[in-house]
């Protein structure tokens, strides 16, 4: 099978869906000729023209609002939010308008749009260009949230998102744009609400979202050297969440570490851990461990920034501790 970068996978997904459905258009800052600062959408304007690949002024709340209105009346916009941090600018249009229109209208209106954005620290971009804000939108009923962890997931999930009749926010990991993975040439979709079991094992389950999937895989390699059998799960979508796969694994291994790059307080790790505790409690041999990003704004200085995100060593160490029956006091 051929191997392509996450960036190419996203580009292909958009191009394929735009070819299939003339109501799909792409809108955002420097998405046309410049192909975004990450060079993800390069070539699309040449194929689809400036009517369907639309460069906007720096008006995030404005073009997000336009997308909601267009979606409500028959288009399927893909909105490019250059950095996940800029989600804060579009919150009203996304959360008060897009997320609620279907419900408030008693099912008569719907808003089929995709917000494509990103997450991830350690690019030395400081506190306003490094946040992982997926927990915020996951909190809002009416929004779906996808978290691709490789080029393969990025393509399959984005195509599903574009076809979904609801507003979907999809977070790509900025650090992964140039990472390659096997991606089929033939068309495929990845359904929402289906987690991937990346590795089977029976002593501990590591659940890693997006950027943290790789961290969990590295941790599993460390633990494999110590003959510890690890199961790895990538939820792939947070809303809807594949509770069944997660609970089955928790029941099998009895020990779970949940790893996510959003802040730990009130975050995704808390949600997943509490569902496991509620629904698989009597199968557990240890408390479910949460590992999120440190609860601080992302600092610029590399020596500080590196301390804020979970690492494979720390994940492995926590897994080791719960297997040994030691409580994890310090994360």
């Amino acid at each position: 099978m051929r191997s392509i970068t996450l960036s190419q996978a996203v580009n292909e997904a958009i191009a394929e869906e735009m070819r299939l459905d003339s109501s799909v258009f792409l809108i955002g800052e420097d998405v046309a000729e410049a192909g975004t600062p990450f060079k993800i959408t390069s070539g699309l304007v040449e194929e689809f023209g400036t009517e369907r690949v639309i460069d906007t002024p720096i008006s995030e709340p404005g073009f997000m609002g336009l997308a909601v209105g267009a979606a409500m009346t028959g288009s399927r916009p893909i909105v490019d939010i250059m950095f996940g941090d800029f989600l804060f600018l579009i919150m009203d249009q996304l959360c008060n308008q897009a997320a609620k229109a279907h419900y408030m209208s008693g099912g008569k209106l719907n808003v089929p749009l995709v917000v494509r954005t990103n997450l991830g620290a350690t690019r030395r971009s400081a506190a306003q260009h490094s946040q992982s804000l997926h927990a915020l939108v996951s909190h809002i009923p009416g929004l779906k949230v996808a978290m691709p962890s490789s080029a393969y997931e990025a393509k399959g999930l984005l195509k599903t998102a574009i076809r979904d009749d609801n507003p979907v926010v999809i977070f790509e990991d900025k650090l992964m744009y140039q990472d390659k993975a096997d991606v089929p040439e033939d068309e495929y979709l990845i359904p929402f609400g289906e987690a991937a079991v990346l590795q089977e094992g029976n002593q501990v389950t590591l659940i890693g979202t997006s950027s943290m999937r790789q961290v969990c895989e590295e941790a599993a390699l460390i633990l494999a050297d110590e003959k510890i059998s690890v199961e790895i799960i990538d939820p792939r979508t947070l809303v809807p969440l594949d509770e069944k796969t997660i609970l089955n694994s928790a029941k099998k291994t009895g020990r779970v570490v949940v790893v996510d790059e959003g802040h730990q307080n009130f975050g995704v790790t808390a949600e997943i851990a509490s569902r496991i505790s509620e629904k698989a409690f009597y199968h557990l041999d240890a408390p479910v461990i949460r590992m999120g990003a440190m609860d601080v704004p992302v600092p610029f200085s590399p020596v500080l920034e590196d301390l804020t995100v979970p690492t494979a060593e720390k994940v492995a160490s926590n897994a080791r501790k719960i297997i040994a029956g030691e409580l994890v006091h310090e994360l």
Partner: protein
Amino acid sequence: MAKKINTNSESYLKMYSQMVKIRSFEDQANQLYLDAKMPGLTHMYSGEEAVAVGICEALTVKDKITSTHRGHGHCVAKGAELKQMFCELLGKEEGYCRGKGGSMHIADQSNGNLGANAIVGGSMGIATGSALRAKLNGDSDVTVCFFGDGATAQGLLYEVMNMAALWNLPVIYACENNGYSEYTATDEIAAGDILDRARAFGIEAHKVDGQDVLAVNKLATDLVARARKGEGPFFIELITYRYHGHHVGDINRTYYRSKEEEEDWKKNKDPIKILGDWLVSEKIASDDELQIIRDNIAAEAHVAVQYALEASYPNSNEVDMHVYMETT
């Protein structure tokens, strides 16, 4: 004319030095990037020096500014030291933000710089709020809000200009129109005349050549004085140009901007050269004297960079410090 020149020659030379200081800082910063010694990316101010210097030389230490992602120039112009600036750029403990901010948040707060902002348009509310405080407290300071042409697309600007005009706030909106926002020409993303947008709120708006530091300074001095008397707000559009790419990594950029255009600005509209030629023609300084100024500042910048490269990183226990202020 001659009399005026004599009394002001010191301030003209100060403006020259400040512009050279910004250019030297940026040259060194660019080199740090090329040598892979700088974490992350940075946006260069080279070419736009007359804007920051012309305006900040019309301000006192008590006056406030808000800055942008392209903020090194504002920081220097408002009085910052190169050593602490380079330390910030490299994430060192002695940086103005203790290494927590980096290039996009660099600011010398003690000189009234309320911060560089990585959210385009993010400081418009802050600047206007600072002016509201001045009015409420009867303080005499003025706040200048720097932002780019691209930032005029943010709706926040129109909300705060409306309030500033309603309440006569001492704020000056300084739009640095360098012709581009990222990789897009301004006329593709800005409808109508930018000045008309301010005028729609009854705000007095001026356009000025942002490469002519004396013109900028003259206008700013006048508007600052009037804003202090309660005649604000004001809006200035400064026509300028950035010499580098949008950020240091934006090297191949002929698809949105021609080499000829860049060369034309550098050769014919360089703010340092324009002031230098004028200083010589007015006999305020000789070519040799200007050369000495440039050499001294370049040497100072070099020393500052070396210092910052050797300086220590913050201690790891600083990572969760400053999330909240200790309330005493």
